[in-house]
């Protein structure tokens, strides 16, 4: 076994494992510790982490989250009628959440509650699609598995969206936490989940989340996320999704916050007719590092994936996009489309864009493309020649570039929320 770095060792030491826990949960955690302890935090030598360094984690002394905390104003993404979940530093807060009227037979609540009330379902799903073998961060997450949100729907079509507010709140000390979430949609269920990750008090926190999502048998999930963590936050969000027969997972992700963000998504299209549509908008400024890593596994015939990721980088921001589409043997007639475009707004910016296709099936329709560029001089001049000042001309072009992603999604009242995020970022840039 390698010798772990001090930070890696401190994360291992922070695990609290009690032999009285559910046996399967205990073994999940132990596996997590074991897998993480083998390698510790990833370095640039780890192929999946070639462009994103977590070295800055080694500089701080990360503490466990305190039991008591205060929380400031809650910033909801939409004011419309919705179920509301509040999670502060990875801990589900029942006092602040609003879940009344949630359909009979369905479950919405904390992981710790679900472990008691739905332990069988959790046993068959937790750690199954985002596993400790998928990388050290997920292993670390598994070893700390304690709280997060759980949503279980079977034959339920929700009429209101669920908003989830993940607050990172610091009171002086740098804190680290590892929430584990689970979403299960089965038998023609439908839901819209809107997740907002945000920081309060602007201190350092390391949030290493693991989210498992199962969308089975004709179910549809719209899962839109805004990553807007605090300026000193380091966020790694690992999401594993399994899409079943004739089911659909649609997700638009916007990131504009944090010091470092790694959004790691793996989607398994595991039955015929499974589809996914992903959109990404990333905006980063001086000192920020943003990494979107997406892996799509076309495991069965006639599965479909479509992705459009666009970003704008200013200041000395770094961007990383790794997009892999794997079409497995026998997954004939699959369709996978992937486009990544990045706009570099200033000379110090840098982007690594690596779209990749691996195809082992027949009759497959796949394409991937990547482009990196600056604003078009001719377009800028055209706007300016019509009297539009340089700064405004630039804004118009950046906004239209990024908004293309929004236009591909049917977001209803969220459209404005996402559009405003873009224009606010541009104004502040």
């Amino acid at each position: 076994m390698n010798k772990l770095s001090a930070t890696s060792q401190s994360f291992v030491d922070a695990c609290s494992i009690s032999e009285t826990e559910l046996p399967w949960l205990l073994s999940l955690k132990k596996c997590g510790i074991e897998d993480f302890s083998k390698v510790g935090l990833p370095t640039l030598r780890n192929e999946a982490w070639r462009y994103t360094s977590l070295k800055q984690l080694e500089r701080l002394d990360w503490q466990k989250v305190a039991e008591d905390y205060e929380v400031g104003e809650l910033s909801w993404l939409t004011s419309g009628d919705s179920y509301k979940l509040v999670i502060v530093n990875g801990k589900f807060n029942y006092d602040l959440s609003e879940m009344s009227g949630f359909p009979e037979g369905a479950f919405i609540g904390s992981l710790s509650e679900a472990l008691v009330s739905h332990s069988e379902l959790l046993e068959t799903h937790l750690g199954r699609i985002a596993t400790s073998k998928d990388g050290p961060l997920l292993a670390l997450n598994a070893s700390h598995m304690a709280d997060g949100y759980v949503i279980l729907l079977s034959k339920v079509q929700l009429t209101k969206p669920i908003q989830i507010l993940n607050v990172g709140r610091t009171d002086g000390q740098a804190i680290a936490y590892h929430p584990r979430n689970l979403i299960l949609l089965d038998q023609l269920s439908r839901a819209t989940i809107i997740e907002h990750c945000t920081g309060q008090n602007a201190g350092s926190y390391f949030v290493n989340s693991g989210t498992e999502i199962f969308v089975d048998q004709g179910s549809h999930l719209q899962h839109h996320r805004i990553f807007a963590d605090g300026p000193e936050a380091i966020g790694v969000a690992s999401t594993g999704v399994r899409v079943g027969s004739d089911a659909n997972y649609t997700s638009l992700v916007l990131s504009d916050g944090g010091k470092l963000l790694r959004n790691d998504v793996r989607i398994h299209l595991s039955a015929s007719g499974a589809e996914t549509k992903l959109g990404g908008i990333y905006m980063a400024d001086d000192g920020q590092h943003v990494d979107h890593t997406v892996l799509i596994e076309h495991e069965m015939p006639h599965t479909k994936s479509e992705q459009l990721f666009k970003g704008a980088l200013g200041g000395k921001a770094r961007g990383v996009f790794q997009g892999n589409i794997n079409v497995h043997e026998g997954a004939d007639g699959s369709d996978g489309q992937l486009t990544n475009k990045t706009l570099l707004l200033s000379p110090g910016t840098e982007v690594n864009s690596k779209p990749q296709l691996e195809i082992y099936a027949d009759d497959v329709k796949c394409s991937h493309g990547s482009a990196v560029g600056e604003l078009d001089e001719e377009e800028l001049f055209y706007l300016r020649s019509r009297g539009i000042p340089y700064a405004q001309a630039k804004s118009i072009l950046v906004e239209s570039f990024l908004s293309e992603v929004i236009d591909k999604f049917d977001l209803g009242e969220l459209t404005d929320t996402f559009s405003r995020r873009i224009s606010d970022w541009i104004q502040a840039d």
Partner: protein
Amino acid sequence: MLKIKNLHATVDGKEILKGIDLAMGFGEVHAIMGPNGSGKSTLSYVLAGRNGYEVTKGEVLYNDKNLLEMKPEERAGEGVFLAFQYPVELPGVSSMNFLKAAVNAVRKYRGENELDAMDFLKFVRETTKMLNITDDMLKRAVNVGFSGGEKKRNEVLQMAVLKPTLSVLDETDSGLDVDALRIVGEGVTALRSPHRSMLVITHYQRLLDHIVPDEVHILADGKIVRSGGKELAVELEQEGYSRYTADAA
């Protein structure tokens, strides 16, 4: 209102304009004709302030101000408008928002109040009707997927709403069918007024049937080699440029 004196300009280190002199008064229409590659579009870009077009000698006075010192957006605010030979496509920017941003930017520059969405719509509708521009075109992204003729009509629409005092029309008649040519001709003629001047770059007499020029200039190899009245355009269309290109060479 416009005085171009001994204007020399280079693009990528290559001299394209080699000493242009031209003076226009208020309300005048001047036509510039000349063979391909003679520098007509280059002149129009220099007047509009495009990057990369370096003036190496000479000056341009516009209403007694040094035009060459101004940014492109300031020139537009001061009333200079260029109808592009090849209008630029702006994917994702709706024509309506683009027009509104332009009109309000120019109004702001000129110390006028900005128009709200309703007032703006009313204001634009009057012009779109005259130019036969559909609401559908206004909803689409600027020039994206527009036909050649639609792009040119869109340029005239922008000109009409920005109310320039100096319009440079760079081959606005190219690629237009007979009806569109008439519409554009009427549109441009409607903008003629005693304080508005126009510099019309064209290869054909036909637009000049609609907008009768006060003077016609022949540009060959970066210089004005001959100037005359409107009959010069007729003569050119019949005889071509061969004697001027020979002269200039």
